[in-house]
């Protein structure tokens, strides 16, 4: 069908999603898209992304007291720090797009820190995901699920935006999420093998 419409390179995923053993996302196409109108420019889009990253930092910080053991608690701190570095990157991109823009502290103050990258509020997410505490493997599996949702949200946002530089910022962020997912996968393998992390 597509090949007959001028599409040059079309692949069919063998076995469909049933054969897909990688991470998946869930939820409707529109989930989380209320955060943007679609008319944002690059700087405005990065402010939204900064707020979403703030939510994820808050998630790991608020999860830490719920950890079932010290290793899981330490991992929470490490993941929060990784997200803060991710925020630094987002802020750097923001200041490139808006040289006279807001200071980082002001941006952080404005961020609600209530909604995570996947579009869910932090207290709700914690109650749903960790009703009875968690260990390191459970935390990492959950983190990978959250990152997959975040990657999905950023890419669905890119479909809604009309400004090309703003879209490109989302593709940059998606690359970051992919790298973060790979790092989390490596940590999970270490934990599964009983190695120190």
């Amino acid at each position: 069908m597509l090949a007959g419409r001028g599409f040059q390179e079309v692949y069919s995923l063998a076995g469909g999603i049933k054969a897909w053993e990688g991470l998946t996302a869930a939820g409707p196409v529109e989930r989380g898209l209320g955060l943007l109108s679609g008319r944002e420019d690059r700087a405005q889009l990065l402010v939204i992304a900064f707020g979403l990253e703030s939510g994820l930092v808050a998630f790991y910080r608020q999860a830490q007291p719920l950890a079932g053991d010290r290793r899981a608690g330490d991992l929470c701190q490490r993941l929060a720090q990784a997200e803060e570095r991710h925020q630094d990157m987002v802020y750097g991109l923001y200041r490139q797009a808006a040289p006279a823009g807001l200071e980082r502290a002001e941006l952080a103050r404005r961020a609600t820190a209530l909604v995570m990258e996947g579009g869910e509020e932090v207290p709700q997410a914690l109650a749903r995901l960790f009703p009875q505490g968690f260990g390191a493997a459970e935390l990492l599996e959950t983190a990978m699920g959250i990152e997959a949702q975040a990657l999905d949200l950023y890419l669905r946002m890119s479909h809604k935006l009309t400004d090309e530089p703003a879209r490109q910022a989302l593709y940059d962020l998606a690359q970051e999420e992919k790298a973060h997912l790979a790092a989390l996968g490596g940590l999970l393998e270490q934990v599964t093998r009983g190695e120190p992390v």
Partner: protein
Amino acid sequence: MMLKALFSAARDMTPDQARAFMASRREDQYTLLDVRQTGEYERAHIPGARLIPLPELSSRFGELDPLKPVIAY
């Protein structure tokens, strides 16, 4: 679903090949297309997939860039 029969010129890509393909490219360099029904997409989809249910594809293919590789499922 036999997508290959619907996309006559489509080539099969295994999940491992698809993962390698996606890992080596930015998301603006290809299209991941979910042609299942909306409820199936909502239950689980590959992150970043664009949903266009198969019955709508003939009227919505203009939303896709024909110059980019498409991986459909």
